[in-house]
Protein backbone atom coordinates (compact mmCIF):
# COMPACT_ATOMS: atom_id res chain seq x y z
CA UNK A 1 0.00 0.00 0.00
CA UNK A 2 2.88 2.31 0.74
CA UNK A 3 4.26 1.72 -2.74
CA UNK A 4 0.90 2.71 -4.16
CA UNK A 5 0.91 5.89 -2.10
CA UNK A 6 4.45 6.59 -3.27
CA UNK A 7 3.43 6.21 -6.90
CA UNK A 8 0.43 8.44 -6.35
CA UNK A 9 2.67 11.01 -4.76
CA UNK A 10 4.96 10.91 -7.79
CA UNK A 11 1.94 11.70 -9.92
CA UNK A 12 2.32 8.65 -12.14
CA UNK A 13 0.11 5.74 -13.02
CA UNK A 14 0.69 2.46 -11.20
CA UNK A 15 3.18 0.04 -12.67
CA UNK A 16 2.06 -0.51 -16.24
CA UNK A 17 2.20 -3.71 -18.20
CA UNK A 18 5.81 -4.26 -19.20
CA UNK A 19 7.46 -4.91 -22.52
CA UNK A 20 6.99 -8.66 -22.18
CA UNK A 21 3.22 -8.28 -21.89
CA UNK A 22 3.06 -6.41 -25.18
CA UNK A 23 5.42 -8.85 -26.88
CA UNK A 24 3.27 -11.74 -25.71
CA UNK A 25 0.09 -10.14 -27.06
CA UNK A 26 1.91 -9.43 -30.32
CA UNK A 27 3.10 -13.04 -30.62
CA UNK A 28 -0.37 -14.32 -29.81
CA UNK A 29 -1.97 -12.14 -32.49
CA UNK A 30 0.67 -13.21 -35.00
CA UNK A 31 -0.02 -16.87 -34.19
CA UNK A 32 -3.78 -16.40 -34.60
CA UNK A 33 -3.26 -14.73 -37.98
CA UNK A 34 -0.82 -17.47 -39.00
CA UNK A 35 -3.31 -20.20 -38.22
CA UNK A 36 -5.97 -18.28 -40.09
CA UNK A 37 -3.74 -18.20 -43.17
CA UNK A 38 -3.09 -21.93 -42.87
CA UNK A 39 -6.59 -23.14 -42.09
CA UNK A 40 -9.05 -20.88 -43.90
CA UNK A 41 -10.06 -21.45 -47.52
CA UNK A 42 -11.62 -18.16 -48.51
CA UNK A 43 -8.99 -15.97 -50.19
CA UNK A 44 -10.47 -12.82 -48.67
CA UNK A 45 -10.34 -14.19 -45.14
CA UNK A 46 -6.78 -15.38 -45.71
CA UNK A 47 -5.95 -11.82 -46.71
CA UNK A 48 -7.60 -10.48 -43.56
CA UNK A 49 -5.46 -12.83 -41.49
CA UNK A 50 -2.37 -11.52 -43.31
CA UNK A 51 -3.37 -8.02 -42.22
CA UNK A 52 -3.71 -9.32 -38.67
CA UNK A 53 -0.15 -10.66 -38.75
CA UNK A 54 1.18 -7.36 -40.10
CA UNK A 55 -0.65 -5.48 -37.37
CA UNK A 56 0.76 -7.77 -34.67
CA UNK A 57 4.28 -7.00 -35.84
CA UNK A 58 3.57 -3.25 -35.66
CA UNK A 59 2.45 -3.69 -32.04
CA UNK A 60 5.83 -5.24 -31.24
CA UNK A 61 7.63 -2.37 -33.00
CA UNK A 62 5.66 0.27 -31.07
CA UNK A 63 6.29 -1.54 -27.77
CA UNK A 64 10.05 -1.70 -28.42
CA UNK A 65 10.05 1.96 -29.42
CA UNK A 66 8.19 2.98 -26.27
CA UNK A 67 10.40 1.01 -23.91
CA UNK A 68 13.55 2.26 -25.60
CA UNK A 69 12.38 5.83 -25.31
CA UNK A 70 13.01 6.67 -28.98
CA UNK A 71 10.68 7.71 -31.77
CA UNK A 72 12.32 5.65 -34.52
CA UNK A 73 10.10 2.61 -34.03
CA UNK A 74 7.04 4.81 -34.29
CA UNK A 75 8.29 6.21 -37.60
CA UNK A 76 8.86 2.68 -38.88
CA UNK A 77 5.30 1.79 -37.95
CA UNK A 78 4.13 4.87 -39.84
CA UNK A 79 5.85 3.53 -42.95
CA UNK A 80 4.49 0.03 -42.33
CA UNK A 81 0.93 1.36 -42.17
CA UNK A 82 1.43 3.29 -45.41
CA UNK A 83 2.87 0.28 -47.23
CA UNK A 84 0.12 -1.96 -45.83
CA UNK A 85 -2.55 0.35 -47.21
CA UNK A 86 -0.96 0.20 -50.67
CA UNK A 87 -0.56 -3.56 -50.35
CA UNK A 88 -4.22 -4.06 -49.45
CA UNK A 89 -5.33 -2.07 -52.48
CA UNK A 90 -3.13 -4.05 -54.88
CA UNK A 91 -3.92 -7.42 -53.28
CA UNK A 92 -7.65 -6.87 -53.39
CA UNK A 93 -7.39 -5.79 -57.03
CA UNK A 94 -5.58 -9.06 -57.78
CA UNK A 95 -8.28 -11.04 -55.94
CA UNK A 96 -10.98 -9.23 -57.91
CA UNK A 97 -9.18 -10.00 -61.18
CA UNK A 98 -8.88 -13.65 -60.10
CA UNK A 99 -12.57 -13.78 -59.26
CA UNK A 100 -13.50 -12.33 -62.63
CA UNK A 101 -11.45 -14.97 -64.37
CA UNK A 102 -12.30 -18.04 -62.29
CA UNK A 103 -15.62 -17.18 -60.59
CA UNK A 104 -14.41 -18.48 -57.23
CA UNK A 105 -12.43 -17.33 -54.20
CA UNK A 106 -11.90 -20.73 -52.59
CA UNK A 107 -8.20 -21.61 -52.59
CA UNK A 108 -8.86 -25.31 -53.18
CA UNK A 109 -10.39 -24.56 -56.56
CA UNK A 110 -7.52 -22.32 -57.64
CA UNK A 111 -5.10 -25.04 -58.67
CA UNK A 112 -3.93 -23.80 -62.07
CA UNK A 113 -0.26 -24.07 -61.04
CA UNK A 114 -0.60 -27.61 -59.75
CA UNK A 115 0.85 -30.21 -62.09
Amino acid at each position, binding site marked *: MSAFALILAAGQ*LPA*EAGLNHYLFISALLFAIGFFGVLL*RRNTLVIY*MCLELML*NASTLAAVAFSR*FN*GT*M*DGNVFVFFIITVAAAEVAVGLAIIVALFRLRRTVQVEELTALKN
Partner: protein
Amino acid sequence: MADFVFYLFAFLTVLAAAGVVVNRNAVNAAMCLLLSFVGMAALFVLLEAYFLALLQVLVYAGAVVVLFLFIIMLFDVQGGDPRKPYRKMAAASGLVALALLVIGVLSLAHHGPPANPDPALLAGPLPAGASLKSFGYLLFTTYLLPMQVTGFLLLVAMLGVTVLSRKFDAGEGTP
Protein backbone atom coordinates in the same frame (compact mmCIF):
# COMPACT_ATOMS: atom_id res chain seq x y z
CA MET B 1 -5.64 1.15 -13.44
CA ALA B 2 -3.40 1.12 -16.48
CA ASP B 3 -2.86 -2.58 -15.95
CA PHE B 4 -6.58 -3.21 -15.96
CA VAL B 5 -7.05 -1.19 -19.16
CA PHE B 6 -4.20 -3.07 -20.79
CA TYR B 7 -5.70 -6.44 -19.96
CA LEU B 8 -9.14 -5.29 -21.10
CA PHE B 9 -7.97 -4.15 -24.51
CA ALA B 10 -5.51 -6.99 -24.98
CA PHE B 11 -8.31 -9.46 -24.28
CA LEU B 12 -10.63 -7.62 -26.67
CA THR B 13 -8.00 -7.57 -29.43
CA VAL B 14 -7.10 -11.24 -29.11
CA LEU B 15 -10.73 -12.33 -28.87
CA ALA B 16 -11.67 -10.35 -31.98
CA ALA B 17 -8.66 -11.76 -33.84
CA ALA B 18 -9.79 -15.26 -32.94
CA GLY B 19 -13.21 -14.29 -34.24
CA VAL B 20 -11.69 -13.47 -37.64
CA VAL B 21 -10.28 -16.99 -37.89
CA VAL B 22 -13.29 -18.83 -36.46
CA ASN B 23 -16.16 -17.07 -38.26
CA ARG B 24 -17.34 -18.84 -41.39
CA ASN B 25 -19.15 -15.80 -42.71
CA ALA B 26 -16.77 -13.34 -44.39
CA VAL B 27 -18.76 -10.26 -43.34
CA ASN B 28 -18.66 -11.32 -39.68
CA ALA B 29 -14.93 -11.94 -40.03
CA ALA B 30 -14.46 -8.41 -41.40
CA MET B 31 -16.42 -6.97 -38.46
CA CYS B 32 -14.24 -8.91 -36.02
CA LEU B 33 -11.20 -7.55 -37.87
CA LEU B 34 -12.54 -4.02 -37.32
CA LEU B 35 -12.91 -4.68 -33.59
CA SER B 36 -9.40 -6.10 -33.43
CA PHE B 37 -7.95 -3.01 -35.14
CA VAL B 38 -9.76 -0.69 -32.72
CA GLY B 39 -8.43 -2.69 -29.76
CA MET B 40 -4.95 -2.43 -31.25
CA ALA B 41 -5.38 1.35 -31.50
CA ALA B 42 -6.23 1.39 -27.77
CA LEU B 43 -3.02 -0.56 -27.08
CA PHE B 44 -1.14 2.07 -29.09
CA VAL B 45 -2.65 4.75 -26.84
CA LEU B 46 -1.43 2.83 -23.80
CA LEU B 47 2.03 2.82 -25.40
CA GLU B 48 1.75 6.63 -25.77
CA ALA B 49 1.81 6.45 -29.57
CA TYR B 50 -1.20 8.71 -29.95
CA PHE B 51 -0.55 9.63 -33.57
CA LEU B 52 -0.22 5.99 -34.55
CA ALA B 53 -3.45 5.17 -32.74
CA LEU B 54 -5.19 7.85 -34.78
CA LEU B 55 -3.60 6.53 -37.95
CA GLN B 56 -4.59 2.98 -37.06
CA VAL B 57 -8.25 3.94 -36.74
CA LEU B 58 -8.18 6.07 -39.88
CA VAL B 59 -6.25 3.78 -42.21
CA TYR B 60 -6.95 0.27 -40.94
CA ALA B 61 -10.36 0.51 -39.31
CA GLY B 62 -11.53 3.16 -41.75
CA ALA B 63 -10.06 2.39 -45.14
CA VAL B 64 -8.87 -1.22 -45.14
CA VAL B 65 -11.93 -2.82 -43.53
CA VAL B 66 -14.27 -0.79 -45.72
CA LEU B 67 -12.32 -1.95 -48.77
CA PHE B 68 -12.69 -5.55 -47.61
CA LEU B 69 -16.41 -5.09 -47.09
CA PHE B 70 -16.76 -3.55 -50.55
CA ILE B 71 -15.05 -6.54 -52.15
CA ILE B 72 -17.18 -9.00 -50.15
CA MET B 73 -20.29 -7.12 -51.29
CA LEU B 74 -19.02 -7.19 -54.88
CA PHE B 75 -18.44 -10.94 -54.84
CA ASP B 76 -21.76 -11.73 -53.21
CA VAL B 77 -20.47 -15.14 -52.14
CA GLN B 78 -23.21 -17.22 -50.60
CA GLY B 79 -22.68 -19.42 -47.60
CA GLY B 80 -19.06 -18.82 -46.76
CA ASP B 81 -16.65 -21.61 -45.99
CA PRO B 82 -17.89 -25.11 -46.78
CA ARG B 83 -17.60 -27.59 -43.94
CA LYS B 84 -15.11 -29.98 -45.39
CA PRO B 85 -12.63 -31.99 -43.38
CA TYR B 86 -9.05 -30.79 -43.61
CA ARG B 87 -6.68 -32.83 -45.62
CA LYS B 88 -3.68 -34.58 -44.12
CA MET B 89 -1.33 -31.95 -45.55
CA ALA B 90 -3.20 -29.07 -43.93
CA ALA B 91 -3.29 -30.85 -40.57
CA ALA B 92 0.43 -31.63 -40.75
CA SER B 93 1.32 -28.05 -41.66
CA GLY B 94 -0.83 -26.81 -38.78
CA LEU B 95 1.00 -29.08 -36.35
CA VAL B 96 4.42 -27.97 -37.63
CA ALA B 97 3.36 -24.31 -37.34
CA LEU B 98 2.17 -24.89 -33.77
CA ALA B 99 5.49 -26.53 -32.87
CA LEU B 100 7.44 -23.61 -34.38
CA LEU B 101 5.36 -21.08 -32.46
CA VAL B 102 5.79 -22.94 -29.15
CA ILE B 103 9.55 -23.08 -29.71
CA GLY B 104 9.57 -19.36 -30.52
CA VAL B 105 7.67 -18.42 -27.36
CA LEU B 106 9.88 -20.66 -25.25
CA SER B 107 13.04 -19.12 -26.65
CA LEU B 108 11.59 -15.66 -26.01
CA ALA B 109 10.90 -16.66 -22.42
CA HIS B 110 14.46 -17.98 -21.97
CA HIS B 111 16.52 -15.46 -23.90
CA GLY B 112 14.17 -12.49 -24.12
CA PRO B 113 14.43 -9.26 -22.17
CA PRO B 114 14.12 -9.64 -18.39
CA ALA B 115 10.62 -9.60 -17.01
CA ASN B 116 11.42 -6.74 -14.67
CA PRO B 117 13.92 -4.47 -16.40
CA ASP B 118 15.95 -1.98 -14.46
CA PRO B 119 13.64 1.01 -13.90
CA ALA B 120 16.54 3.32 -14.61
CA LEU B 121 16.68 1.92 -18.14
CA LEU B 122 13.00 2.60 -18.71
CA ALA B 123 12.62 5.92 -20.45
CA GLY B 124 10.23 8.43 -19.02
CA PRO B 125 6.96 9.20 -20.77
CA LEU B 126 7.24 11.25 -23.90
CA PRO B 127 5.46 14.58 -23.62
CA ALA B 128 2.23 14.47 -25.57
CA GLY B 129 2.79 17.60 -27.63
CA ALA B 130 6.42 16.91 -28.38
CA SER B 131 5.62 13.45 -29.72
CA LEU B 132 3.85 14.70 -32.84
CA LYS B 133 6.45 17.43 -33.29
CA SER B 134 9.35 15.02 -33.14
CA PHE B 135 7.43 12.74 -35.50
CA GLY B 136 7.33 15.44 -38.15
CA TYR B 137 10.91 16.42 -37.43
CA LEU B 138 12.14 12.85 -37.94
CA LEU B 139 10.06 12.41 -41.10
CA PHE B 140 11.62 15.46 -42.71
CA THR B 141 15.21 14.97 -41.57
CA THR B 142 16.40 11.42 -40.86
CA TYR B 143 13.69 9.63 -42.79
CA LEU B 144 13.24 12.03 -45.68
CA LEU B 145 14.31 9.56 -48.37
CA PRO B 146 12.13 6.68 -47.07
CA MET B 147 9.20 9.05 -46.95
CA GLN B 148 9.66 10.05 -50.58
CA VAL B 149 10.10 6.42 -51.60
CA THR B 150 6.86 5.60 -49.75
CA GLY B 151 5.07 8.38 -51.60
CA PHE B 152 6.35 6.96 -54.88
CA LEU B 153 5.19 3.50 -53.77
CA LEU B 154 1.69 4.88 -53.23
CA LEU B 155 1.74 6.27 -56.77
CA VAL B 156 2.90 2.91 -58.15
CA ALA B 157 0.18 1.11 -56.17
CA MET B 158 -2.45 3.46 -57.54
CA LEU B 159 -1.32 2.85 -61.12
CA GLY B 160 -1.10 -0.89 -60.50
CA VAL B 161 -4.64 -1.07 -59.16
CA THR B 162 -5.89 0.90 -62.14
CA VAL B 163 -4.20 -1.50 -64.56
CA LEU B 164 -5.30 -4.60 -62.66
CA SER B 165 -8.95 -3.61 -62.45
CA ARG B 166 -9.15 -2.62 -66.10
CA LYS B 167 -11.72 -4.57 -68.03
CA PHE B 168 -10.01 -6.64 -70.69
CA ASP B 169 -11.29 -8.83 -73.49
CA ALA B 170 -10.34 -12.46 -73.82
CA GLY B 171 -9.07 -11.89 -77.37
CA GLU B 172 -6.80 -9.06 -76.33
CA GLY B 173 -4.55 -11.41 -74.42
CA THR B 174 -3.23 -10.88 -70.95
CA PRO B 175 -3.19 -7.25 -69.92
